[in-house]
């Protein structure tokens, strides 16, 4: 593989210039408020990201990189897909029919076998340090300015701790709003005794206080504060969005189990202007009974996900929505004594498609028995660049933070160019 130098002199010079520009702005201006330059560029395009996180580490051998009949191949077969030449596991029959909408990266080596570290790397594109998650970056640079929805929403049945909602230095506004399944966020209902009229009247009063306070004062911070109340009000108004409004027909297509409902909620959130929706499907950490559990879990995942993919496509949203199916790592080729597969960051796969992604492609490969990457090795930092460039962001630029010089993606790596449209 071509070694990317990352910091070649030209790039250095450009980064320096970008940096200088932002410092000057920082020194001259108030210096503490986002300028959203990049968001302004993009707002009319309204691109967004759908992440489906298969928590625990889906087995690449039971999904995107099957090796039937080989020593570690497991009991399942590979099936042909809508793209001639691409085979995936029989456990994903619905996705197989839609393979022409997706692509696979089969050559990921993150050199990490730890859930938390793997997840952090996959989200941040950096091995160490406090950097924002993909979703927080999307919220900052892709969110439509007038959207009352938080930019980054995570639907999950149970907690994974995401420090500051994955926002790091981008700030709480871009941290994920974590929804516990389809349960509405906390504190979404006005307190007892305060009906809509009373709520409106007390809020009007709040704004009157604010108006008086704003007189001859810096607006930057007070406006951000006001905006959080608008977002809160927006969420309260859309309470119904979180409550079982799914139609009977939708439930028939997506299924009535949790993940089907999460996918339906994801559709609603994406349609309502969220910049990044992450849906977590738990239960892939199969140290025992890997095969029965993958049957169960992927059986639950395959259809609802495809319904969502279909809906994004038929509603014309797929070309502006990057779809990523990922985990924190894959699973060991070697089957253990419990019919389990263990943690494996050395040679595994993800799938992605939609906005900016070449459809029907397979990037890289593993060796015959799946124990090593054979070709086009990449890690989470390459994927991070790729996701952002797919939605039109310059991942080699620096974050829009006055006074700080922080490259968005890891400057030592680059995107998977051949995967981008």
């Amino acid at each position, binding site marked *: 593989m071509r070694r990317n130098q990352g910091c070649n002199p030209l790039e250095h010079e450009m980064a320096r210039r970008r940096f200088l520009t932002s410092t000057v702005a920082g020194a001259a201006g108030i210096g503490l408020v986002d300028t959203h330059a990049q968001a302004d560029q993009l707002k009319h395009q309204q691109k967004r990201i759908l992440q489906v996180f298969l928590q625990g580490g889906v087995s690449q051998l039971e999904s995107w990189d099957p090796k039937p009949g080989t020593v570690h191949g497991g009991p399942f077969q590979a099936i042909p897909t809508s793209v001639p030449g691409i085979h995936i596991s029989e456990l994903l029959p619905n996705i197989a029919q839609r393979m022409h909408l997706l692509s696979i990266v089969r050559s990921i080596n993150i050199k990490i076998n730890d859930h938390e570290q793997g997840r952090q790397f996959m989200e941040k594109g950096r091995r160490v340090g406090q950097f924002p998650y993909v979703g927080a970056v999307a919220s900052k640079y892709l969110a439509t300015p007038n959207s009352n929805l938080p930019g980054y929403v995570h639907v999950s049945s149970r907690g994974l701790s995401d420090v500051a909602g994955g926002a790091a230095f981008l700030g709480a506004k871009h941290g994920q*709003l974590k929804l516990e399944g389809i349960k509405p966020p906390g504190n979404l209902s006005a*307190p007892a005794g305060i009906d809509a009229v009373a709520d409106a009247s007390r809020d009007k009063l709040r704004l009157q206080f604010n108006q008086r306070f704003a007189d001859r*004062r810096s607006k930057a911070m007070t406006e951000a504060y006001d905006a959080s109340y608008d977002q809160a009000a927006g969420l309260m108004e859309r309470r119904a969005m979180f409550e079982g409004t799914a139609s009977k027909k939708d439930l028939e297509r997506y299924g009535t189990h949790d993940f089907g409902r999460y996918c339906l909620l994801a559709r609603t959130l994406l349609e309502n202007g969220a910049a990044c929706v992450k849906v977590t499907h738990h239960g892939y950490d199969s140290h025992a009974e890997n095969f029965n559990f993958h049957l169960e879990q992927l059986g639950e995942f395959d259809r609802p996900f495809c319904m969502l993919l279909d809906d994004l496509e038929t509603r014309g949203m797929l070309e502006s929505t990057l779809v990523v199916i990922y985990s924190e790592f894959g699973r060991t080729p070697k089957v253990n004594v419990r019919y389990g597969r263990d943690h494996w960051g050395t040679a595994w796969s993800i799938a992605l498609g939609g906005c900016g992604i070449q459809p029907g492609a397979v990037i890289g490969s593993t060796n015959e028995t799946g124990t090593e990457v054979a070709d086009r090795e990449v890690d989470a930092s390459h994927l991070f660049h790729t996701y952002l460039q797919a939605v039109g962001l310059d991942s080699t630029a620096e974050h829009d933070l006055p006074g700080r010089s922080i490259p968005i993606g890891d400057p030592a790596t680059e995107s998977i160019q051949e995967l981008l449209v």
Partner: protein
Amino acid sequence: MLISLTMIACSAASSVADTPLHKWVDMAVGMGSVGFENVAADDAGDAAFARRLYLDLTGMIPSAEQARRFLADRSTDKRARLIDQLLTSPQYARRMQYEFDTMLMERRPDKHIKSDEWRNYLRQSFAQNKPWDQLVSEMLTADGTDEKTRPAARFLLDREMKTDTMTRDLGRIFLGRDLQCAQCHDHPNIEGYLQRHYHGLAAFLNRSYLFTDPKSKQTSIGEKAEGAVKFTSVFTSESDETAPRLLDLPPIEDPPAAEEPYTVKPDKKVRSVPVYSRRLQLAAAMTDPANVAFRRNIANRLWALMMGRGIVEPLDMWHAENPPLRPALLDLLADTLADHDYDIRYLLRELALTKTYQQSSQYNGDAEDSDAAHFAVSMLKPLSPEQLAWSMMQATSLTETTLKDLKAKHLAAGTEDAEKQIDDPLWQEETLHNALKAHVDTFAGLFGVVGIQTSRFDASADQALFVRNGAALQSWIASGGGQLTSRLNMLQPPDLIDEFYFSVFSRPPAIGEIHFVTQFLEQQPDDRESAIRKLVWAALSSAEFRFNH
């Protein structure tokens, strides 16, 4: 103006003793120069000053009674007296505990040292006004084996003795420099952040490790007698090796190798102790007068604490291309602080006495927004989670009613010194703190940021939802919670409005405000108590309450 600054800088160094620091500071900021005075804001006024000072030095707004008493005071030195009074209050030590805990540990979860013990250590340190260099020395020297000094070891131990984490945070928190990107190569975009700076700092610590006693399971810091720091640039592939060194100061070479390099030899079961410890060189090197970055960093941070932004901002991004807005001012603060034995209380007192601190946060005339950066107008400072929690509890009188109950309970328990104790400010502070701590933790969880702290303000929807609809605030506003609502309910305008403004905003209402609130109450005649609750809620959720102004 540049010329005058230079002059100040030169003269300041020699004659700070004659003129109080706060006067030099105002001059260094620009007071007295025509250009500056033209845009500078007016004095904040006594009410705004008192609220600001209470928030900055005690961590919560004054009670209505405290605010009224200060306004009623006719003496000319009342601001200075209030500063002195608050700086010696038990609340000051608590406020500094919160601030420095957040600065030093960045809201990390507990790992090896209980945060209660660590916070208590910080609070005691500030109560006795421990010099900053001493406090830092203690933190960088304690190895966790001595119960007495163990809490101080939290800075290192709870970073799990991971060299990268410790190195980065030493740079950021004590030197004002985020050297992370210089770990693998000289910083690509920042001249002067060199790989050897990072690795020189790392070399103090890379021989140290987290030791867990196999029997007691207690953790402490062990150290090896060998281990060099080599580094290779991922860009240029150039390699180098470094002994411990602080930025561009000379490296601290190891003494000639002893025949027996260990006092306690490495073994799985014991904590190894070398004859020569690189780690123990760190405290002295860090606080050495030659290490200018150390004093500049703390001066900049204390300035930011009072003024709302650093002279270098972000606080941990000092480099050639992000220079101090007023280099001479920062040197003045740093050098004077060092000359005063790193007396934090002294510096905060002087800063509070400046006109710069006492300016209004309202512009004069048509001054530009950007002038705030030049310290011509007071900046809005978002309340920390702790300030917000305590201030809301103070405004709703939850603090007052809770303390009253606690006093009664203590008397009823019949302890010998109870009557004397309940009037002791320290007893009151600690008892009240323990009683309301859970609320403060809730706010810290929701409004606090885990990880790198910034001066930037952000507000998220879930925070606003918490204020709008959360149970805690609702119960404080309800008449059964804090006493504010019931107290107001017994009053009529204009007394009601006066009491309301003093309780929540620490000031009397303006004429226009009396009209506007009266009007609101008249529009809601059917249920006055609910109208008052709305009023209190709206005020607590207003920008005027959210920011220290």
